[in-house]
């Protein structure tokens, strides 16, 4: 991989304080408000507690905001002529994607590490293996949402793409059982939204497959194939959308 390019990408992101705040600061803040402070945070969930359940969600939200931001930025900067500039160099498309993927993983790690660290000091509880497995799933799964941002960037063709992508992730977080637990028909709906599978799989380490029933506080069992199918389907949909939009962009030139 081109390490110079990777290092410069990270430096660019470090300069972008506003985006950094929304990527890392906002999820941390949301966790403190909704996970660490309320009394229900101490309620048990299997071997852990509700604070842990919320912490995983907030870290995941930050991670996908980060990767979708990288994706939309890549799409927009390529369309604004940077792709042509790179086209004058020996750097291949694969080489470019490798740099962006490495950047996305690195940036996704920031909200995860930050939120998990705060969680560790503010009452999120679970066996050590749950911490490790959930963080790993969040990190790997977040890469899919680079495609989400990429599609927005290719469709909107301007800096507004980044705001549109991250704004829609907030809505999808509410719909997808991430910010607040849902049950009944809302849970059925949630299972079809893109963030549901991703966060459910990360939480599975804690819950063993259940989700919190908002009426009784008990766990509702969800079979493993459901979040898995959700992740596979949405990854495929986003990949196809990106490919179609890339082709459309090329035809226009």
């Amino acid at each position: 991989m081109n390490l110079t390019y990777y290092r410069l990408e990270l430096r660019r992101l470090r300069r972008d304080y506003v985006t950094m705040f929304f990527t890392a600061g906002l999820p941390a803040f949301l966790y403190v408000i909704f996970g660490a402070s309320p009394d229900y945070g101490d309620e048990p969930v299997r071997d852990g507690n509700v604070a842990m359940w919320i912490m995983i969600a907030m870290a995941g939200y930050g991670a996908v905001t980060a990767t979708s931001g990288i994706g939309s930025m890549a799409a927009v900067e390529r369309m604004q002529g940077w792709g042509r500039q790179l086209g004058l160099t020996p750097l291949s498309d694969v080489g470019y994607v490798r740099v962006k993927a490495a950047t996305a993983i690195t940036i996704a790690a920031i909200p995860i590490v930050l939120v998990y660290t705060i969680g560790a000091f503010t009452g999120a509880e679970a066996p050590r293996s749950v911490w490790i497995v959930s963080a790993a799933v969040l990190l790997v799964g977040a890469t899919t949402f680079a495609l989400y941002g990429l599609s927005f960037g290719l469709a909107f063709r301007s800096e507004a793409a980044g705001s549109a992508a991250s704004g829609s992730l907030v809505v999808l977080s509410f719909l997808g059982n991430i910010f607040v637990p849902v049950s009944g028909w809302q849970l059925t709906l949630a299972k079809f939204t893109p963030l549901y599978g991703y966060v459910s799989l990360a939480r599975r380490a804690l819950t063993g497959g259940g989700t919190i029933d908002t009426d009784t506080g008990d766990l509702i069992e969800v079979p493993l194939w459901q979040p898995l199918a959700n992740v596979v389907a949405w990854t495929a949909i986003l990949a196809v959308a990106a490919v179609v939009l890339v082709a459309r962009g090329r035809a226009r030139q």
Partner: protein
Amino acid sequence: METCIRLRGLTKHYDSGSTPTRAVDGIDLDVGPGEIVALLGPNGAGKTTTLDVVLGFTEATSGVVEVFGGPPREAVAAGRVSAVLQTGGLLRDLTVGETVELVASTYPATDPIPKILDRTGLTGLVDRQVQSCSGGEQQRLRFALALLADPDLLLLDEPTAGMDVEARRSFWAAMEDEADRGRTIVFATHYLQEAEDFARRTVLLAGGRIVADGPTDEVRRRASGRTVRARIGTDRIDRVADALRHLPSVVHLTTETDRLVVETSDSDDIARRLLGELGGSELEIEAASLETAFVNLTTRTPSVVGAS
């Protein structure tokens, strides 16, 4: 010696909407080492498309495209050809120095960076963000990026668009130095003066075709010859005009009270007649500027050009 660019029967059509656009409609072109060639033509003549094909950014619809005897992308990847592109192309939040560092990192080896910064006048701007640079400074940065791999062939697409007079002058001065180093340079422009000042060879494009190709001064001469002006008494001017109008060398003739203006491919003959039997005075002969050649060639049919 190795041919830098070889195009045979190049066409490029775009399917936009109902009617396909023929951006390039059959171009044959050879550019040899050390040449400095202007691709001159109005917007939509096919200049940018031709350069895009030579860089491998777009596939030709049909025809042969060879850059240093091989496919364009190979020549680009080998660093043998580079370009200064028309617009965009830079990351605004990087500094000048970072941009150079980034692009340099994609090559296995480059010329020493401080030397290139010095040659392009960027040494003092290294820590400035690209978005704070003027149009001319950004263009110098693109120029520096193009020089990193020490390419044999340099393509420039409207390189001075948006520059002020001073920036334009220093840009071409820097380009002269590169030409003196033996670099082959092909530039697209619609600034006619630039072709006249800088290119030893001019390829005139219109409607996706080459309408003239040769030494810049010859293209100009062949295209529209000279303009002869004379004063003729108002009582005789119509008769004189009629006498000249039917001559085969006369391309265009106008009269205004006592002034006669003749565009001709044989100015000597017209001048002799005007000063002799036709009784003209205050004779002026002027070589057409490339501007005139340009207007003539691109607004008339190619057959007129061939006949003159």
